[in-house]
């Protein structure tokens, strides 16, 4: 168990700058989720912490020690890969025991640690199987087990659930959270799924094109997005953006979350109803504003659903307005 610190970490591949300087202090036992769209540099950041990519500039510290030039094996970390990266020619037991054997842990202790992990992950019946004889979810558990048995200071996860189906993903998400709570190991978890980020994270790093736009607790980030990008990325359906000139004649853009807008006869602006999605507990109404921008309203299922083509007013409370300047920064 250890703290983790990134200090203005940058990464370039040749002439392309991929990470433009990320800093964060991770507390011992904290669960940090790095979230962002595809290609924004999440994996690259994680791999720099793992030692699989060199750090172009800045510092990575694990447990107070600078590890920029330390080999992956000497960083006291464990990583779970997106494709699991299990050793295909080894049994589940050997997959989990591999690192311990190399570390010259005694046979008895290896067997004990693997058994404990297998029990925790419900893998006991499969210990003698090869990875190809397992389901996706079971493989995922083996990858977790391989990380757990080594008792590392830091867990690194690179989209560990993205190859699973939706239902299994929800289940494994809960298991990972419970496991991390139980073991108390500092964790860095990469995902592009904002729901995963919201539910797992103690704090999350929202990445946008190599920049950490915002770092904070999920609900804080949700309630107070620092940039237009964060406001649009976190939350589903995403925040509505409307040109301020349309509403109150100011410059920049206004963001309002779908659940904060009400349909009324008159409002701050008017919009034409497109189609409505009745989801049971709630209804999503999609409208088009006069400048053509798309607006989604989330309303209670009990409220009447407006007909297609109707013109309705949109209203929202002042405290729900998020103002962004031309560069996307929160004002």
């Amino acid at each position: 168990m250890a703290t983790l610190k990134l200090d203005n970490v940058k990464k370039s591949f040749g002439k392309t700058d991929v990470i433009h300087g990320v800093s964060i202090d991770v507390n011992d036992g904290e669960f940090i989720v790095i979230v962002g769209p595809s290609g924004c540099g999440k994996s690259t950041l994680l791999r720099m912490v793992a030692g699989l990519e060199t750090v172009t500039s800045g510092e990575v510290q694990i447990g107070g020690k600078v590890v920029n030039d330390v080999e992956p094996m000497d960083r006291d970390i464990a990583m779970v890969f997106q494709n699991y990266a299990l050793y295909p020619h080894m049994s589940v037991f050997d997959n989990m025991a591999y690192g311990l054997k190399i570390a010259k842990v005694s046979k008895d202790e290896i067997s004990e640690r693997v058994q404990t992990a297998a029990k925790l992950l419900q893998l006991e019946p499969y210990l003698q199987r090869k990875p190809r004889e397992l389901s996706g979810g079971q493989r995922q558990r083996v990858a977790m087990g391989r990380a757990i048995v080594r008792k590392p200071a830091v867990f690194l996860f690179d989209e560990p659930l993205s190859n699973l189906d939706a239902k299994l993903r929800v289940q494994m998400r809960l298991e990972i959270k419970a496991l991390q709570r139980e073991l108390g190991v500092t964790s860095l978890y990469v995902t592009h799924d904002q729901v995963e980020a919201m539910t797992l994270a103690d704090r999350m790093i929202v990445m946008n094109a190599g920049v950490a736009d915002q770092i904070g607790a999920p609900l804080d980030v949700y309630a107070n997005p620092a940039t237009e990008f964060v406001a649009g990325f976190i939350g589903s359906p995403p925040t509505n953006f409307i040109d301020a000139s349309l509403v109150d004649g100011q410059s920049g853009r206004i963001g309002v979350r779908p659940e904060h807008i009400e349909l009324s006869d008159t409002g701050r602006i008017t919009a034409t109803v497109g189609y409505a999605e009745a989801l049971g507990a709630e209804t999503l109404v999609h409208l088009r504003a006069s400048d053509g921008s798309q607006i989604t309203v989330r309303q209670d299922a009990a409220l009447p659903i407006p007909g297609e083509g109707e013109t309705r007013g949109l209203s929202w409370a002042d405290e729900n307005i998020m103002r962004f300047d031309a560069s996307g920064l929160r004002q």
Partner: protein
Amino acid sequence: MEKRVTFKGIWLPLLLVLPQILITAVFFFYPAGQAIWQSLFIPDPFGLSMQWVGLGNFEFLLSDPFYRASFLTTAIFSILVTVVSMGVALYLAVLADRLIKGSGTYRTLLIWPYAVAPAVAGVLWLFMFNTRVGVVSWYLGQLGYDWNHVLNEGEAMGLVVVASAWGRISYNFLFFLAGLQAIPKSVIEAAAIDGARFWTRFRTIVWPLLSPTTFFLLVVNIIYAFFETFGVIHTITSGGPQQATTILVYKVYSDGFVGQDLGSSAAQSVILLVIVSILTVVQFKYIERRVHY
């Protein structure tokens, strides 16, 4: 699942494979049949009459110390060629695999030797090691080593092995490189994080995952060393000194065409035919079973 194209009748598929069947018949079945037939006779040197001897040619061969010696020579030669060509190829492939940029260039350069005909390769190496004008033997002379593969049996063997292995390295290299690149990078990275350094990774992860490729190449290279090195041996040593580099294939030629002992030569061909059949069966049997781990 395997995809099958289905034809309605039998005539079109038959017509399509006919050329291949004809070629095989003319260039393989006919001569093979003739060899089997001839191995049962002793013809006179002018081919005017043949005397039926049954399995006499085979009995004589198997008790012939020269033929047995040739078996041993072939075994040593094949093992050396296979080990040298595969070893060097694997080493180069591991190096190229670690390169991110420029591996294409190395690959292209390393393919060239494969395009050189064995006989030409033989002449090339012969020039370099020629006892009087060869570059390499001159340098060896400067270093105080008196190179003479015309008289020294070990040196002769060494030279044909190197010349035969050289042309083979490209082929093996391509397969090894493809095999290495088929191993997911993340598996290697996972092993690195698990604490395995280069050699441990190679021994416990890369080598086992490469084993299907290695096995395939092993069989293919043995077949090559057995049957396709004739040109190299003919140009460099002609099977000498004495019989030091006379491998089985070369003995078929020298006994048949030089020694004019056609019955024995035919019998030797039949024995080779059996050997290559066994090797091929082994190869297909194992290659068909794709998964080795």
